[in-house]
């Protein structure tokens, strides 16, 4: 076991990718000598050279589009999008090209492109730097979407994303980049399947599903609830597409109550999808409606008020109160 931050874990994961897979390469803005604006690719250009750690022109469609071409030629590109709000110039390439290439070629072509996107708020930044657009991508068939919440997962999930032959978007919880955790670089252990949800805290009275940056918040809320005598189970979803409904369903059948928390606005979001599926799968086990805790239906607000926008411990506890009141 080694202790490192999430950013360092991704850095080490990418180092392992480049060392083990000669057809892999990293592409993005400022990922070379600077090591990326979050230093996630720090030192890699020195070790692997500019053909494998490619500083690209400042053009997101260009990054994704050329990555598709490289993948068609047999390469495994890992693209870095600098910030969540800047992925949209590449949205066309991701949704109309990358996601559909395998299907429209009758399975003859594969495009194993990985796209890393730092996402989420809580860093006091300017607009377009704090968003959670995962639902926009989850709605597109052909893509897989995963998001680590801790260093061990971060180290393994980036490697698993590159190994996967489908296109994978890795949403990285940017406000947790500096969160430290133990990483077993010898073996993934429980993290052997990136598309599986993890029950990270067992409980009897309610289930809280969270992912990425809100996992520590959900855990803290569960701990606070325990002081009030409530036993809360917490699930780290880990994969947003596909969603591991089996793990969530099993938990809800035990607890009877479900809260889903994410930073993204609730309307048309992942929480709504989980609520709908769970109501189909565990209707008779539910003691209360599934409650979503998330962002409001507004453009991401200015930094000085983002605390009021972002789900926190109290917002989750309030939702728990409502669920338990039924």
């Amino acid at each position: 076991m080694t202790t490192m931050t999430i950013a360092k874990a991704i850095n080490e994961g990418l180092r392992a990718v480049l060392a083990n897979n000669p057809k892999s390469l990293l592409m993005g803005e400022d990922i070379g000598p600077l090591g990326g604006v979050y230093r996630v690719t720090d030192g890699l250009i020195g070790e692997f050279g500019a053909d494998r750690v490619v500083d690209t022109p400042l053009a997101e469609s260009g990054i994704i589009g050329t990555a598709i071409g490289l993948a068609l030629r047999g390469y495994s590109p890992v693209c870095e999008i600098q910030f969540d709000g800047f992925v949209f110039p590449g949205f066309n390439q991701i949704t109309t090209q990358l996601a559909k290439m395998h299907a429209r070629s009758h399975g003859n072509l594969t495009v194993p492109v990985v796209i890393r996107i730092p996402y989420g708020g809580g860093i006091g930044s300017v607009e377009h730097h704090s968003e959670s657009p995962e639902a926009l991508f989850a709605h597109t068939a052909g893509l897989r979407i995963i998001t680590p919440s801790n260093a061990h997962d971060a180290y393994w999930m980036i490697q698993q994303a590159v190994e996967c032959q489908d296109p994978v978007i890795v949403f990285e919880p940017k406000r947790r980049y500096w969160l430290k955790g133990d990483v077993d670089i010898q073996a993934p252990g429980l993290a052997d399947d990136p598309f599986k949800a993890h029950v990270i805290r067992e409980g009897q009275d309610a289930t809280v599903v969270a992912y990425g940056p809100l996992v520590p918040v959900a855990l803290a809320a569960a701990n606070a609830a325990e002081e009030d005598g409530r036993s809360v189970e917490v699930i780290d979803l880990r994969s947003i597409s596909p969603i591991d409904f089996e793990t969530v369903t099993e938990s809800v059948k035990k607890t009877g109550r479900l809260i889903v928390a994410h930073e993204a606005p609730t309307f048309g979001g992942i929480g709504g999808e989980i609520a709908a599926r769970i109501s189909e799968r565990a209707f008779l086990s539910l003691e209360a409606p599934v409650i979503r805790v998330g962002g409001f239906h507004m453009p991401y607000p200015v930094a000085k008020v983002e605390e009021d926008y972002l789900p926190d411990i109290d917002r989750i506890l309030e939702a728990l109160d409502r669920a338990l009141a039924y």
Partner: protein
Amino acid sequence: MGATHLPSTEFDGTEVDDQLEAEAEAAMGEPDAQMVQLLGPDGTLGSDPVFSEYANKLDAGKLRGFYADMAAIRRFDQEATALQRQGQLALWVPLTGQEAAQIGSGRASQPQDYIFPTYREHGVALTRNVDLSELLRQFRGVSNGGWNPKDTNFHLYTLVLAAQTLHAVGYAMGIQRDQKLAAASDPAGTEPPAAVVAYFGDGASSEGDVHESMVFASSYNAPVVFFCQNNHWAISVPSAVQTRIPLSNRAKGYGFPGIRVDGNDVIAVHAVTEWALEHARSGKGPVLIEAFTYRLGAHTTADDPTKYRLSAEEDAWRAKDPLARLEVYLRAAGLADDAFFEQVKADGDELASYVRRTTHDLETPDIRAAFANAYVESHPLVAEELAWFEQYSAGFEDAAEGAAH
């Protein structure tokens, strides 16, 4: 070009449009003055200080082959249009008028090159040995592709304009890396150098992806040839709305060569493309070719060009027909006789008959294949939805059986 190119006011109705267009035309200058042309519309062979050398390498067999290819793809185009009119295809995208641009460029490529077409490159497909009946799958609604690009290095058609130009540059960046790896492991170098051709049109030239692809290609000196068929009309919008300068001039801004070639002159198109591909394969970087041509037919079978352009303009371009001028040349030079042209016609009819027969035989796919190909690796949601679909479908079968008893 001049007056024949300008739509009259009865089509666009606003003076402002006419004025803008006239200014754009003026800015573009006389295209002939800066356009590579070897075989003129009257069928006489001219010369060019750079490209005649390439034309001189063409023997009689090659030139006859160009004609046969152009005639075949025009006949194919007519047949596909007829199949659409008869309800056998949902849509067709005619290429008539652009045969020289496509056959000339396609025949300049080598098997190891990789081609990214847009959706009108039926002629290029022919040169890459794609079974032409496979091109019709998409338009019959039985596939979104139709062929395996790995068999011919001819990629699937891309309908989102210009998206493929970036794929082409990425693919070319892959070739660069492959060549470095090959050079390291095999200094003797047995693999022939390769390049990529990205096709797009004057309409697509306005898309941001074309700009980004040219920036990337230039920055990394990627072995890619951008082949723009300026057919003068993006559905109903004239090329003057897409650009105020000859499109080939844009290459200058990216720092690589740009050449306007007479897109109805198969000899010049072949020469220029061969030069450009050699340039790219030898590590000298990208080239932009603007093939100055004309879409004689409609944008698609759903389009009506009489609403936006004059028949006089079409007539002016018909006079520059790519097949007619090559026929004049071949006959005058004694390179082909009546028997040859009769054979070409007979071969065309045979191709048309083959296409008609195979179109009728194209099988409707099973939606289960769509489930299977949504992802490469197993996916629980797809599996769940497929299981539901099977159960749902089985319900109908049971009901049908019940009704039979």
